């Protein structure tokens, strides 16, 4: 699984979140399992 720039991944066990600041190959894991791609919660543009 490739890790896309600017995406966030979350651990289903501990809810730790990581932000991908440099894209790359490989799989982000936490608590011995792949982290899930977090779905953005859109907010209205405020500025």
């Amino acid at each position, binding site marked *: 699984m490739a890790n896309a720039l600017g995406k966030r991944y979350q651990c289903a066990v501990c809810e730790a979140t990581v932000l991908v600041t440099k894209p790359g190959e490989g799989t982000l894991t936490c608590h011995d399992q792949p982290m899930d791609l977090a779905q953005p919660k859109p907010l209205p*543009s*405020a500025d």
Partner: protein
Amino acid sequence: MNLAMILDMAADGLGGRVAVGSLDGGITYEQLRQLARATARELARRQASTLALAEPQGPVVPAALFGAAWAGASYAPLNYRLPATTLEAAIDRLPSPALVAPAGIGGTPAEHWLADLRAGAATDPSTEGYPEDPTQPAVLLLTSGTSAAPKTAVLDHNNLLAYIFNTGEFASAGEDEALLLSVPPFHIAGVAAVLSATWAGRRVVPLPVFSAEAWLEVAAAEHITHAFVVPTMLARIVAVLDAPGAGPAPALRSLAYGGARMPAPVLERALELFPETGFANAYGLTETSSTIAVLGPEDHRVAHASAEPGVRARLASVGQPVPGVEVRIVDGEIHVRGEQVGGRYLDRNGRVDEEGWLATGDRGRTDDDGYLFVEGRLDDMIIRGGENISPAEIEDTLIRHPSVATAAVLGLPDLEWGERVAAAVVPAPGHVIDVDALAQWVREAIGSLKTPSVIEVRDELPATPTGKVLKRQLRDELGDRAPS
């Protein structure tokens, strides 16, 4: 983490997109990154720990914001309209500043600074990184302060990044999106707008000097999709669009506003003039890295269309707290907590308590569904004969009269009542205000208790750059002319 990461990622992911300016002739994210790196090198060469910038707009502004972060220095945008002595005093309080300012103040003029950066970026292709020290001061802002002496608020990398990460998504803007930036760079909304837009990948089109006509012209010419305005700007835009022979309103997707209280009549008319636009009311403080609560587009349209008073009242609300922010009301005052809350100052003690709460100084309440209402400053409440009177309702009533463009209401000392209600009003273009008729208008609308006993007609009101009326100054001026 470091604010520079926002630009670094945008240049990595969207390097060829225009970041600032017109589609032809603007600079890309990659070019902006080169300017930021050149800025960092110049700050290191001068051994400066602050980059003070007194400049209205242009690529030098985001280059300074991100370049200072890249150097591990602080960025201090200054109000270039301040008198030279006030500006010099503010600069003197900054740690080891490099100054970019118009000739006459003593720094490097912006055009020379930018030319040097461009030359530096062209000759030095190095790609050095930035320091990771997230509790370092990233941005220093002189807060306007409507009632007290100015102070320099400190926001660190963590504060500002918490706001950006919690409220926006990286590269979420379409390539066609463009933000019209009409708030000055020395205001927190101007700082936040550059950070948010870069994070989203949304082109920024600066409007250095605001006029409603220029705003409308640039909005059309640059195919603007997003804008942020302060209430006085929206009032002028609405007036121009309502004038005979005016063209249609620009087709904005998003129109956000904040910085001061929005008069209800202005907002209601704007919702009619921009029927397809999503409105957002953003409430925040300099000390909270800008927005802490938002009333979004759906809430605006539902409230505007509703016949139910409780729902309709929400047009005056600032909505719900943004993610990562907690709000509570303590004795009628809004308190806020969250990672984006700074609450520190360069020149005085911090205002955050040991549990992380910042007392805002704003009066507020929440309704049953959690909508937050900001009712004014704590010290703006008028107490007449034991009755608490909020100026906001009286101001809205005055502005609804066709002859009134804008109004400010405050309390003056009164021997009999403790305080009495006084108003300063500015006539709408082409109108003459009949003070007795206006008082009668207020009396019929909201009763004699709330009717000003003093109404002064003026050409303009003393205000901060974002349109907050300087009530202390106004109170002194009105009090001198109308002794109790």
